[in-house]
């Protein structure tokens, strides 16, 4: 199962954000979108989620154009963890996770399927312990897990996450990454916009490197994260190496002298 992007171009008025993007996303893989600020990462993710309609080309799932899918159908197949971890009211964690069932709800009350999906999502993210606590009283790490549980509760085939690690401490960042990785291993397509190159190197199965609205490179970690690519796109002097345990590590030495 693949999510295919063909010749995708997006602009706000005259300002071109994305240009001629061609890429294929595989189910069962953790794909990471990288690129400096303003490269168009979030815009690409919003196009994949069907929130933005590209002017040229497009993204498709099972031969259906995502931007033209019926919103509820799309919501059942593609789950989005938006940027910013917004929660506007002090509702309980469980009520927040239950929002993920909205695309599946018929009638008024939750069905047995709904309740099962909510329980599964909360146990996968280890959030049952604070099911009755208002989300506004949770720590940043707990809230991030509850928000991810909300996405899982929709039981989508695809999970898109826009900067899911922002404002989290390293331990919590690793929790979220491990959860996303587990979803990919379970067969879901996982696509995340990340800022942290170290995590991308550690967790990604596939990387898209964006630069000024264009797809600069894509492929495996070794193919994309090269000293030349990082110098060109980020302006940093860095290299990959394998540590004693055979794990790929990234060492950032400094800025490339200009």
């Amino acid at each position, binding site marked *: 199962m693949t999510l295919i992007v063909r010749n995708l171009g997006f602009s706000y008025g005259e300002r071109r954000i994305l240009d001629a993007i061609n890429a294929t996303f595989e189910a069962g893989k953790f794909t990471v979108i990288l690129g400096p600020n303003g490269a168009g990462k979030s815009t690409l993710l*919003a196009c994949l*989620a*069907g*929130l933005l309609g590209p002017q040229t080309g497009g993204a498709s799932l099972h031969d259906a154009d995502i931007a033209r899918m019926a*919103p*509820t*159908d*799309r*919501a*059942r197949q*593609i*789950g*989005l963890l*938006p*940027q*910013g971890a*917004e*929660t*506007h*009211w*002090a*509702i*309980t964690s469980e*009520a*927040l996770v239950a*929002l*993920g069932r*909205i*695309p599946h*709800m018929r009638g008024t009350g939750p069905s047995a399927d709904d309740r099962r999906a909510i329980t599964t999502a909360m146990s996968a993210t280890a959030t049952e312990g604070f099911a009755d606590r*208002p989300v506004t009283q949770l720590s940043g790490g707990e809230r991030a897990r509850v*928000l991810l549980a*909300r996405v899982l509760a*929709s039981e989508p085939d695809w999970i898109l996450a826009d900067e899911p690690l922002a404002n989290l401490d390293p331990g919590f960042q690793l929790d979220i990454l491990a959860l996303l990785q587990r979803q990919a291993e379970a067969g879901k397509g996982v696509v995340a916009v990340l800022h942290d190159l170290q995590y991308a190197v550690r967790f990604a199965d596939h990387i898209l490197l964006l630069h000024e609205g264009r797809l600069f490179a894509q492929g495996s970690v070794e193919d994309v994260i090269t000293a030349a690519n990082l110098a060109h796109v980020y302006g940093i002097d860095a290299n990959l190496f394998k540590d004693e345990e055979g794990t790929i590590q990234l060492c950032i030495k400094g800025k490339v002298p200009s």
Partner: protein
Amino acid sequence: MNNRGLTSLLLLLTLAAFLLSLMAGKVWIWPSSWAADSADGWIFLELRLPRALLGLCIGAVLGLSGAVLQGYLRNPLADPTVLGVSASAALGGVGAIYLGLNLLPFGLFACAMLGAGSSILLLLAISRNGGPIGFILGGMVLSTLAGALTAFIISIAPNPFAASEIINWLMGALTDRLMVDVATALPFMALGVALLLSTGRALDALTLGENGARSLGINLFRLQWIIVLGVGLAVGASVAVSGVVGFVGLIVPHLIRALYGEQPSKILLPSALGGAILTLTADSLVRLLPGPSEVRLGIAMAVLGAPFFLLLLLRYRRGNA
């Protein structure tokens, strides 16, 4: 107490407030003389019944509109009065009176509803992305502008009688309304209430922000128009029939949230009931205050509501600091 128990209690209180409104006043009218062929029976049928029905309806409409607007804008300070929706409806109504459109069937209603609906569209246009305070500032601008234009129309009114007629209506009261006024307003309010009650699930989804809601399949464009139409019909009709009765929509959802929790869909119906209870009780109390003439309901609600708004604003600022 669970939510079902709370709602039953609110229903009972609504009934009690309705009965109080039927009985209370300079003359108390007990149920025994409601059907009597006497002065009391006449007061009941011609004065008390339409007044109590109106109190019930506009209270419910204003409480519900406040709850929906707060959920939609994700802003606990939103309310038809604060956002200038009521003032714009009043401007529509005054414009209708000035142009003589109120003589046409539904002329006053149509203009008030148009004023209310278009004010929300204007507000969204000027305050989108302005954050919670942006909407309040936008509402202030709208409210001031609508108030100034209303005053302008009054000042150029053709004769003093027309001017005093307009001012009397504007101040907001449930007095001297006929059953025919109630019957005219009711269908619009009912349609508005039905539209607003249908927004629960979308408002819940907006807890996650606009992108979160859209990713769950919520059509925000459609939601916006349901709210513009629903609030336009409901608040427009309530202003057309009783002038500006403010702050019900601000006060009630806050009290309801303390009982039901903050999930937007859970407070819609209870806010309608709470609005009815507050309005009916306040309207009964203004009748019971001693003095030669009664305090108008709109004035009483403003005296109650303005300090409440200030209190919320202070608490809100502390929470953000």
